[in-house]
């Protein structure tokens, strides 16, 4: 794809924040706010797929909505192809609406049940006054074929289609305006596994053919690995780590990412036995009242092994460069760079996790956990904790 600003990223997000007010009391005064997204910065390059992962409630969907200005950001700027779109009125935003589209998680809720799908797909062309009615119908038919739908289905209604077909309709609706950026908000989470692969392959093929740029929001690390060029990991409204996909799966540097990846199920039983799972303790804290300093410090296994440095509680770690194209927001990420030290720390954390898992499972009451630094008493390679209930 040729564009005038070839070098510049398509999307630059700086210090983006979204706080949802909470109203309460008799007078409906604002009593607090949900810090859904708090100071997030990242870029999306032309033609790439940026995977955005994190647990539910971490703000990844909100980021996608903010990019498209479906939500008004509390703070920060979004620059699309060199233009700051944060302050634009809906009228000035309209040309940009054409260039960025979204496909949704729930293919049952994202289509107007009372509109024939042809009308739903065509709506964008009508709104932007593109072509004559006949040309629009041809374009709709072309797009429907492109995503693998029969053009004569245009007269049918959403309820007549299966989940996978509806997701294709949603993709067709987004693509009919020939956008450059496509925000995919968990596009396959609601689909059967067999259909997931079909839709993912379709998305990849469309990216190749049309030169699309994707922001791919998902909670499934496997799906993200399959489709992403780079991966961004979010935790509780903040960005933990951004790195190329292979890098982040091979050598993650943020303790949260390491824990997240250790929970990904592995199909090979041998590899599974060797997998060192780190089970995070407790729940994700509330975004209404998030922890001070590093958002992750309350559950961080690395911090525990470093004897709970106070810096994690007081100072917010910035997203900083650690290696080529690899950014991490952790004060102590250097501890994880050197391979031997890293293995030792991870092994210790996994040992603590397995010990806890055993005690939970057999209900033998509290067991004395080995001091984290000794290691070795529990063999982390032993398949003890692998049958843990609470599959990730």
């Amino acid at each position, binding site marked *: 794809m040729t564009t005038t600003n070839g070098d510049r990223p398509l999307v630059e997000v700086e210090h983006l924040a979204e706080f949802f007010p909470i109203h309460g009391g008799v007078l409906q005064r604002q009593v607090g706010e949900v810090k859904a997204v708090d100071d997030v910065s990242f870029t999306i390059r032309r033609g790439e797929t940026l995977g955005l992962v994190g647990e539910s409630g971490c703000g990844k969907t909100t980021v996608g909505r903010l990019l498209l200005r479906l939500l008004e950001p509390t703070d920060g700027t979004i620059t699309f192809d060199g233009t700051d779109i944060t302050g634009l009125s809906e009228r000035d935003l309209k040309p940009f609406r054409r260039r960025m589209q979204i496909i949704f998680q729930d293919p049952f809720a*994202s289509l107007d049940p*009372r509109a*024939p799908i042809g009308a739903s797909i065509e709506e964008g062309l009508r*709104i932007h006054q593109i072509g004559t009615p006949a040309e629009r119908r041809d374009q709709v038919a072309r*797009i429907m074929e492109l995503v693998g739908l029969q053009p004569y289905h245009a007269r049918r209604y959403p309820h007549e289609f299966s989940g996978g077909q509806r997701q294709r309709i949603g993709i067709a609706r987004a693509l009919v305006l020939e956008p450059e950026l496509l925000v995919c908000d968990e596009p396959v989470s609601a689909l059967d596994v067999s259909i997931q692969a079909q839709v993912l392959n379709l998305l990849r093929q469309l990216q190749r*053919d049309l030169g699309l740029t994707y922001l791919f929001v998902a909670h499934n690390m496997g799906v993200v690995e399959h489709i992403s060029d780079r991966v961004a990991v979010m935790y509780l409204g903040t960005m933990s780590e951004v790195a190329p996909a292979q890098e982040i799966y091979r050598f993650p540097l943020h303790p949260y990412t390491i824990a997240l990846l250790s929970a990904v199920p592995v199909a090979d039983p041998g590899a599974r036995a060797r997998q060192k799972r780190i089970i995070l303790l407790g729940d994700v804290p509330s975004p209404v009242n998030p922890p001070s300093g590093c958002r992750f410090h309350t559950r961080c296994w690395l911090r525990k092994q470093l004897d709970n440095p106070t810096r994690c509680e007081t100072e917010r770690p910035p997203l900083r460069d650690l290696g080529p194209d690899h950014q991490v927001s952790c004060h102590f990420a250097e501890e994880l760079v050197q391979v031997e030290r890293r293995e030792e720390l991870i092994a210790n954390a996994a040992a603590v996790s397995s010990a806890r898992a055993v005690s939970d499972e057999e209900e033998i009451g509290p067991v004395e956990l080995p001091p984290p630094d000794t290691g070795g008493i529990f063999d982390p390679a032993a398949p003890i904790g692998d049958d843990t209930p609470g599959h990730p």
Partner: protein
Amino acid sequence: MANRTGALEAPAAAAERRSASLWGDAFRRLLRNRLAVLGGLFVLLFIFVAIFGSFIAPYDYREQDLAAVVAAGGPVGPWVGPHILGTDNLGRDLLSRIMDGARISMIVALVVQAVVLFIGVPVGAAAAWFGGRLDTLLMRFTDIVYAFPDLLFIILLSTALRETVFGRALDGLLVVFVAIGLTAWVGMARLVRGQLLSLKETEFVEAARAIGVSDFKIVTRHLLPNASGPMIVAVTLGIPGAILAEATLAFIGLGAQEPRASWGKLVFDGQAFLRSEPHLVLFPALAVAIALISFTFLGDGLRDALDPKLKGKQ
């Protein structure tokens, strides 16, 4: 964008395709629903009678056949003599009066529901869509209108506007009908607000916003069609209410006045002779009942026709 268009040049199907729309499909489905078609035909018949009743009625609605009343010693019964449905105590032909009454009753039904839709839908939609302060403001206003005594409001309005052009229209009846509508829209506003509040959170609304569809078009093209079912039912059920409200007002001197007739007024007038001459109540009441059933069948058919999920299940 030109080079991007080229990439989308997938083989275009040559076949001419008719684009479908909800309303076109709904109309075709409505025509397949026999009860709805029957109801619609009756509604058309009533409207025809309302417009042309004075030309096709056997007698003038004011004309008194005093000889027949004297001969019968009171209201003439049905199916005796030239008066098919009999006469009232003043010797006026009942069929002609029912046909004349159709005019007022149909006008009240349509005017009141038009006012209800014209005010209730925008108020409810605006409250739901914009939310916040506007929602609070509009719904509190709705509560106030709801709490205000209907009859008092109608009396005040029709008295205040009596000497204006608007007040004189339709022998002073239009202002009364509009006043009935002005007290009745609150239910529609609440209904629309409730429906839209749940619909506006759905992802297809977000998809429309992402495309750049304006707020107004999102509400009118996506939200209201999805809320149309309950709205149609409310309108259908509101029609008999309006016809009976007019009758109540006629009773206290605000509705149709002598010698004019409306269905509600005929029922009220006939009550005095309920024991001896039940036909004076029976036939106007039957007219009201048939009109109501017709509107209900039509409304139900319309509601089902507008729901694509019911296709082929009628």
